[in-house]
């Protein structure tokens, strides 16, 4: 670590509303502690803007510990910034150098319209889950937990997929704005577990159809999503989705 504080130029996307034109604004920020998280740095910027009578930069955030999936941001062209397996809220300023210009943009994808500044609407993800990302079991209907054994290693793979935080970094990073990693994570989790079997074929067909309907792009197996995913979800789940899809295509009773 060279010094404890940084002087930065921030190039931030500002957009007053969904249908308003947007553009970059440059801000100088001095004396940024290297121990700050990226969002704390933005807090400091906002305090400065408020003091100067300007409107603060709107950005999504909530838990600030990397699990809620609310924070986003394209930082210097990388979803959640330069570190792998990290959300923006966990990214720390020690990763940057003094004098640097940092470009901050919202997620860009047609199904994720900008609400304001860096805030986008990700409700498309909810609608994809609504189309089949669940097990249809009513409350009170469940047998004893141990009646459904799951081999330890299968459960681990399911958990790898289930770790998705739904932040949308996969879509943001993909050159095609494809949501395949997100969709495959849920399809994969539920296709591995015995609980997901009854609805297996319909789930993958419906979720893919909804994904297309939302206007996401097509997967070209570039694996950029995997590199950008803060939960480090592997593209092997996309392969599993493809297998599930083929099986459903051929064998599903429709």
């Amino acid at each position, binding site marked *: 670590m060279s010094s404890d504080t940084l002087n930065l130029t921030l190039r931030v996307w500002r957009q007053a509303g969904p249908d308003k034109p947007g553009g970059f604004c440059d801000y100088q920020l001095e004396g940024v502690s290297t121990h700050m998280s990226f969002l*704390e740095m933005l807090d400091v910027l906002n305090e400065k803007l408020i003091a100067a009578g300007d409107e603060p930069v709107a950005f999504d955030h909530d838990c600030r510990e990397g699990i*809620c999936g609310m924070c986003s941001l394209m930082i210097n062209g990388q979803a959640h910034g330069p570190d792998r*397996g990290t959300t923006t809220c966990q990214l720390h300023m020690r990763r940057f150098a003094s004098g640097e210009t940092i470009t901050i943009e919202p997620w860009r994808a047609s199904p994720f319209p900008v609400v304001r500044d860096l805030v986008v609407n*990700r*409700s498309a993800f909810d609608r994809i*889950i609504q189309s089949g990302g669940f097990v249809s079991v009513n409350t009170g209907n469940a047998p004893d*937990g141990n009646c459904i054994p799951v*081999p330890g290693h299968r*459960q681990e793979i399911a*958990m790898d997929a289930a770790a998705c935080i739904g932040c949308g970094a996969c879509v943001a990073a993909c050159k095609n704005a494809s949501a395949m990693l997100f969709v495959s994570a849920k399809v994969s989790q539920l296709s591995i577990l015995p609980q997901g079997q009854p609805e297996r074929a319909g789930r993958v067909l419906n979720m893919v159809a909804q994904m297309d309907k939302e206007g996401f792009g097509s997967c070209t197996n570039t694996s950029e999503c995997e590199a950008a995913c803060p939960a480090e979800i592997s593209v092997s789940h996309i392969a599993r989705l493809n297998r599930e899809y083929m099986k459903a295509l051929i064998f599903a009773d429709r």
Partner: protein
Amino acid sequence: MFRVASDTLNSRVPAGPLEQKWDKHRFNLKLVNPANKRKYSVIVVGTGLAGGSAAASLGELGYSVKAFCFQDSPRRAHSIAAQGGINAAKNYPNDGDSIWRLFYDTIKGGDYRAREANVYRLAQVANNIIDQCVAQGVPFAREYGGTLANRSFGGAQLSRTFYCRGQTGQQLLLGAYQALMRQVSTGRVKMYGRREMLELIVSNGAARGIVVRNLENGKLEVHTADAVVLCTGGYGNVYYLSTNAKGCNVTAAWRCHRRGAFFANPCYTQIHPTCIPVSGDYQSKLTLMSESLRNDGRVWVPKNKADQRPPGQIPDDERDYYLERRYPSFGNLAPRDISSRAAKERTDAGFGVGESGLAVFLDFRDAIARDGEDVVRKKYGNLFHMYEKITAENPYKVPMRIYPAVHYTMGGLWVDYNLMSNLPGLYVLGEANFSDHGANRLGASALMQGLSDGYFVIPYTIGDYLAGSKHSKLAEDAPECRAALQDAENRITKLLSVNGRRSVDSFHRELGLLMWDYCGMARTKAGLEATVPRIRALREEFWNNVRVPGEGSTLNQSLEKAGRVADFMEFAELLAVDALHRNESCGGHFREEYQTEDGEAARDDENYSYVAAWEFQGAGNEPVLHREPLVFENVKPSTRSYK
């Protein structure tokens, strides 16, 4: 500072033996005919474990449900951040667990300040929760043979905690979220994201609707229903720095309190012992390190205050493993309140480590030597990774530095056995109510309570109310709706028009510091007495000097924060008054005047074995105290000992 009402609150706990209360009660509850259910509408505010599971379950039953959350998606509620696990007395490990033992541990853990019947019901339905979640596809940890795995957790001497790596809350929430999404797809639940509840609508004495602000476009909306279910979480953010998400707030609960709902035991706040210490004044939140780490990590400070050696070079006989020393039978697994206070005791005495001196070590050296780094990585890898990301230190090599931080709030809106507040038709679930944890919550019990309330309590109890209610549909432009809407609008206008010089955050930070210093881990009469006028002064300055830029008609995050902080400013005073009125130490509420010789909390069962439920009398006016006596028919309150 307050007035005492002469009445006693009726908790509506059914009579009969403890084990049979819930069964018999369910039999006595009125039912709604399946065909009639869709005619009843229910509003659910908040979509965490309690709200998500409640909305989904009510939808499954056939009610017309509207669910609201302030996040962009219901999947993001802060339940998601719970790491460690969820308790249930399945006794799968065959180590002697039982419903009774879970009940007993929870009552004792709560320092005998919880309602027996509620806690017993919680222990009873806990097993169903595990089954339900497994059926939903929640990937709980498994043994090699495919059966469910358990681990031990603070405050218990056996393994009853089910977990999904270090992200149990996430998986349980996603289970509830998916169940909710399924109901949304059937049309039985209508989901409203990015909506913040600003007012409760009360009509003829019953809760009948809410006013929300659409955070994306600033529009105020009125929603009416036959009942309102509040699942809006805790108020830990009154301390500004806490492990809560930035958006967590007391607004929904406080707005209900202002409309007549009693607020119970606000002074019961939980300070979690294992959090990453504060590193600077820009800090925006504190990060929890799961309590499960204490299964293998050992907590210590140097015996010599002036010891400046790197921790690895301090030999064992110069280390003070103070939890093991003070509580030999529970050791590092002592409950949260006890461990937190023990850390505070050491750092106050000058033995703290790190730059600020406000930290203790949590050391995995021995576990790594015993089990190897790989085993430790498998159990805690993601937590270690998170620690390293935040502190840039490698916990496999140097001990973690940890310090207590505000984590959970046991207090909340008062509810009866049916989880209904004193306002008919207003139900309160999960952390937002006060019901099950007494003065201190044990680890892995919050998830249990949220899901118990949502999956297995509210579906039955709300039917009883709805079947008995005779009200007609409330129009969205009825006078009481218009009045509530007007109140919400006026407040927004007022916040935007102050146009002072200080930002909302600066006020919140100041309030938080005040609360942490005087209403935090240890409280004194003098400190609390001095704090109340300071809170009032700060509140007054807030309304005269806050600057909320922007307009009300767009996404305006400053305005959102301002509304929440304004409510914290009122709520903080009640918290301090409650702490001041409770002249005893119990669980998370530690009054320095009331402690035993060896520094443990000294309860006063004779005078304070009651729930303190406060009635609002106007901001700045003395609140009225209503008491619900706590009756212990099955366990005998004793001095809580973990030695």
